[in-house]
């Protein structure tokens, strides 16, 4: 029994990002529980049919998962977070991971690499044929969206109209380097604060403080009775207030 061909997207790349954002908003609202397509469409005032038509693609590259009700995968959530924050680095990081894990997308990159570059139309047709589709406006739109996705992931670059494959080592950092994010959970034990592990990915979507501009820094501290003084000292250091210890003690006693 033959398997199904790769499901091409049915919308342009910017529209796909809007849909991922819609899933992200619905995901936050449901706190990670699966949601139905109408709920997602409603939460983002989006056409439900357009969303449904792209679900096979989203599932095939690992952005969403589930049956009737869908939920974002971990990478899908990271991508949604990137779109929500308008963070190119985070979007690139998530897309790069999706390309790494998709045979179809990796093979599209290989096709460009082995030919030492392809023009947009040639790669569009290559992707359409590889997906088992005939060339039509719909399939070319989908193939075009994938090319834009590959460019946004850093795997392809547009060199004056010729698409070129970046070697893995030469790709732009596909992480949050250069972005101010707090990825690490800081605590204190006896004397020195130390980083024990990262919870940022799982928590940031739900515990982001409302802000209209600037940046948000979330700090989560685990405190028990034995180290409360050290934690207070750590907070002073982090906030840049070198308050006299005596005054602090005084305040606390009040």
């Amino acid at each position, binding site marked *: 029994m*033959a*398997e199904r061909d790769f499901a091409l997207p049915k919308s342009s790349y910017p529209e796909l990002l809007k849909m991922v954002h819609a899933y992200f908003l619905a995901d936050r609202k449901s706190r990670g529980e699966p949601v139905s397509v109408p709920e997602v469409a409603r939460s983002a005032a989006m056409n439900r049919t357009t969303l449904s038509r792209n679900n096979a693609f989203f599932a095939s590259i690992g952005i969403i998962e589930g049956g009737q009700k869908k939920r974002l995968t971990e990478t899908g959530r990271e991508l949604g977070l990137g779109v929500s924050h308008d963070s190119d680095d985070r979007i690139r990081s998530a897309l790069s991971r999706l390309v790494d894990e998709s045979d179809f997308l990796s093979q599209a990159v*290989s096709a460009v690499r*082995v030919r*030492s570059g392809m023009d947009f139309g*040639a790669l569009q047709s290559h992707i359409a*044929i590889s997906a*088992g589709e005939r*060339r039509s406006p719909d399939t070319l739109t989908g193939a075009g969206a994938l090319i834009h996705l590959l460019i946004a992931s850093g795997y392809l670059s547009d060199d004056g109209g*010729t698409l070129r494959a970046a070697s893995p080592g030469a790709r732009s950092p596909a992480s949050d380097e250069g972005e101010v994010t707090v990825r690490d959970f800081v605590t204190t034990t006896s004397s020195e604060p130390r980083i024990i592990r990262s919870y940022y990915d799982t928590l940031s979507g739900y515990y982001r403080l409302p802000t209209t501009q600037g940046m948000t820094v979330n700090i989560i501290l685990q405190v028990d009775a034995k180290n409360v003084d050290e934690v207070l000292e750590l907070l002073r250091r982090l906030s840049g207030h070198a308050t006299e210890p005596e005054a602090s003690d005084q305040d606390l006693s009040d």
Partner: protein
Amino acid sequence: MAHSLPQTTAELLIRASEGVYVLGPETSTDDVSTFLGGSAAHAAPALEGARELGFVAQGQDSDHWIPGPLARLLASVPPAEKTVLLRLQLEQYEPYAVFRDRLLAGESSADAARQTCIKFTFAIDALDAETVLVNWGTYSNGLRYAEDRKLLVTVDPDIDRTIVAVQERVVAERAAIRAHIVARLGVDAAAFATGEIIDRLIDSYFDLVNGDPVRDSVFHLGHALEAFVKKVAEIDPVVVLPATTRTLGGVAQHLRNERRFNDKHHGLIVGLTALRNAADHAADAEVGATWEISRRTAMAANELGWAVMRSFFETRAGRAEL
């Protein structure tokens, strides 16, 4: 001779050719589509392209395929050398030769494709023809884009010499692997495992050491075992196989019933058959997913396959060794 220009990519055409070789003679279009991981609509043009370029031939009907000698070579070389083999065949494919000559005459790729379609009365849209010819040409390095994105024809007077070098290297590597496997089989089993048995054992090990897809290796091992058990049935006194018993598992079971195989050898072959079946691209109905086979498992399976063949003859000589 009438030609066709199927809409497929160079990569699919090559993979389909390899699939026909790996799966064995008279493989069906459906089996190749499973091998490629896509639909039959996906595989059919790729197979037609492979036939046009001489990598495979039509089998008993339009839905069955036979590998040509170049299909094995394709399956035996790394990607860079696959491009050379495609180039060799492409240059001999008349529609491509006309397309290339029109480009050399100064035509644009769109015009050259349109003129090629007229000459060979292709029903395909000229834009689709251009897509396919450029796709195959750029993959094989027969065409390349200049700085101004104009398509250029590349000339390689040494291509024949390159092909010979590729063939010589493959022959040398296969000879080394043959020597290794023969040593592991021992004298009796090696003398018995001629023809398709040894060829497929070499293919299987060759794929593993060259980093080719693990599934291909496991398929080759399955073919080798299938040829082995059928040949075991022919050892005097011949065990006549029922007409409907053709599969590896079926033949092995029949030989067990006829006491040609003992329980241990039969059990090991059943295990290897299960692995061969797991290598199929289709989802396993029982687990609801497609099995991934690790290179280490496939290597162990090769070792086990050699051990069973060797042990079969050791046991016949009165030595219960595995």
